[in-house]
């Protein structure tokens, strides 16, 4: 794919530039206990209550790996269509910071647990693109430094220290701000389907570092052809961007900043930058020349991680249906449109909700009600699907009442409102409030006859202008409080006015 195809080109003063991005996503592994200790991982506990002596790096304490965290990494690797490495190991990444009591982070440097893979992502316009995965490795999270509790001191909470993270590194296959957020959204969906990461960006369960570089148009195609990074520009890494919107903003700012520097005859320094969400700009984080000298070496406290074939096979056999497979099934077996299916599978909670509504009911109707009526209403109220006042069983019943022609589509909208506001069993509401559709042709005929008798001129006009029959449809519906079966009304009017 060329820059022209993606449409994201920065028109500088001296020429056109394309943008190339790779992302490093840190995903917190969903587990009860930490990667190398038995302390809890739950969010929001009192400071330093979920810290063992291992996490606090007390002398003589030894790490013992959590088997489930290993399984979660393998599960994720399989979900990313990636190579699982039966032999991997842990290294120490050395640096000093108050929230890192060990003085090093246990990570995987040269031999990660998961190798190359790829995922298919979806742009805003519905078109799809593939992003290569470079690797996934397991590592420890650091603690949390709080700088605003005291003007002269930093407060440190080690609850997060030692929690397992998966660092997922993409290849530089991302070309626009929209693609970057689409990639993170897809990654998040896969992780949530797999149950390997909660994916809540506000809680820091998913954090993205974005590598951005710019090159003259055509450079990327040469890079893809040859694999030679010299065709790409020097990259800057924007650390810890914590929302999809900020990812897009940070990239736009950073790419334009780089173009400006290059066109003014300057040079991009490979550096780490921070995105300031308040001002929308990125700024240089630290220029300490030693900052990146991590002096990795194999952790002598941990033996190599050898995965048995059976262990990997068992995880593979228990993988849940992932978003792409689900979308395919929705299209092929349920007859949904690709668009409807994509919207439904984009988030696990949505897909689960839809499948609970479905329960053997009319799939297209169910998809329409979930995607349009329900999501429309939820968006309007700023609610997420898990906060919906209407549960899937209730919505399922509404769908069923429509497909069994007990109520009309129009009445169904009123019923939806009642259930949204008041709750209750849709079937009972329809019964109690007399909302049932009238399919009794005799009753409809009586209304039609009366209308024709009262409006002879209108009735005569219909023969010349069949479209004016719409007026009668409206009047019948009005007279019957919208409960008449629209098809029956049409049939009877056609018979009486046109035959």
């Amino acid at each position, binding site marked *: 794919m060329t820059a022209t195809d993606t449409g994201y080109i920065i028109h500088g003063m001296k020429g056109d530039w394309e943008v190339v991005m790779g992302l490093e996503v840190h995903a917190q592994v969903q587990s009860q206990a930490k990667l190398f200790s038995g302390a809890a991982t739950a969010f929001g506990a009192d*400071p*330093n*209550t979920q810290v063992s002596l291992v996490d606090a790096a007390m002398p003589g304490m030894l790490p013992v*790996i959590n088997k*489930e965290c290993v399984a979660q990494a393998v599960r994720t690797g399989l979900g990313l269509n990636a190579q699982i490495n039966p032999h991997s190991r842990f290294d120490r990444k050395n640096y000093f*910071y108050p929230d890192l009591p060990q003085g090093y982070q246990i990570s995987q440097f040269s031999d990660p647990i998961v190798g190359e893979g790829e995922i298919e992502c979806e742009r805003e316009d519905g078109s799809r693109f593939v992003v290569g995965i470079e690797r996934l490795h397991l590592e420890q999270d650091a603690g949390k430094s709080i700088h605003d509790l005291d003007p002269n001191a930093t407060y440190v909470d*080690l609850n997060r220290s030692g929690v397992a993270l998966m660092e997922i590194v993409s290849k530089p296959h991302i070309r626009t701000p929209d693609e970057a957020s689409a990639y993170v959204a897809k990654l998040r969906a896969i992780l949530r389907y797999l149950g390997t990461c909660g994916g809540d960006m506000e809680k820091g369960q998913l954090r993205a570092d974005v590598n951005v570089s710019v090159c003259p148009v055509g450079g990327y195609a040469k890079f893809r052809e040859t694999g030679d990074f010299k065709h790409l520009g020097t990259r800057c890494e924007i650390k810890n961007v914590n929302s999809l919107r900020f990812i897009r903003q940070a990239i736009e700012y950073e790419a334009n900043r780089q173009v400006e520097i290059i066109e003014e005859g300057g040079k991009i320094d490979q550096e780490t930058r921070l995105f300031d969400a308040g001002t929308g700009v990125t700024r240089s984080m630290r220029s300490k020349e030693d900052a990146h000298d991590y002096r990795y070496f194999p952790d002598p406290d941990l033996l190599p991680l050898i995965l048995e074939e059976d262990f990997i096979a068992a995880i593979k056999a228990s993988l849940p249906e992932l978003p792409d497979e689900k979308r395919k099934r929705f299209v092929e077996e349920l007859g949904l449109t690709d668009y409807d299916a994509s919207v439904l599978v984009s988030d696990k909670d949505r897909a689960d909700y839809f499948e609970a509504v479905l329960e053997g009911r009319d799939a297209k109707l169910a998809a329409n009600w979930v995607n349009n009526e329900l999501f429309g209403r939820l968006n309007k109220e700023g609610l997420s699907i898990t906060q919906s006042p209407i549960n899937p069983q209730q919505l399922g019943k509404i769908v069923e009442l429509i497909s069994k022609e007990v109520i009309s589509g129009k009445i169904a909208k009123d019923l939806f409102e009642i259930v949204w506001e008041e709750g209750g069993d849709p079937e009972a509401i329809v019964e109690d409030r007399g909302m049932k559709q009238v399919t009794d042709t005799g009753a409809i005929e009586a209304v039609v006859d009366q209308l024709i008798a009262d409006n002879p001129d209108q009735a005569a006009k219909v023969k010349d202008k069949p479209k004016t029959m719409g007026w009668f449809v409206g009047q019948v519906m009005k007279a019957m409080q919208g409960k008449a079966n629209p098809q029956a009304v049409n049939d009877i009017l056609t018979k009486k006015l046109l035959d």
Partner: protein
Amino acid sequence: MSVTTDEVRRIAKLARIAEPTARLEALTQELNGILDWVEQLGEVDVEGVEPMTTPVVTPLPMREDAITDGNVRDKVLKNAPNADAGFFVVPKSVE
């Protein structure tokens, strides 16, 4: 392989060891002696041999995913030079 005094100073700094200015020269010679001695291993032909990071052949011990530890804040904070409201308190470290 050998190191210069500048490199030794830098390594000391990275390891947060007070820069031993007076001993720097001697330390450099000492380290180079060690490096020279280890260099003898270079004579062994390791073509096609996987790097060995441990001589231990038992599998990596693993534990189940269960909460068995933590809730020892007093112990964790006991040796901290300064603590407040359950936090460690350290000199301001904002970048």
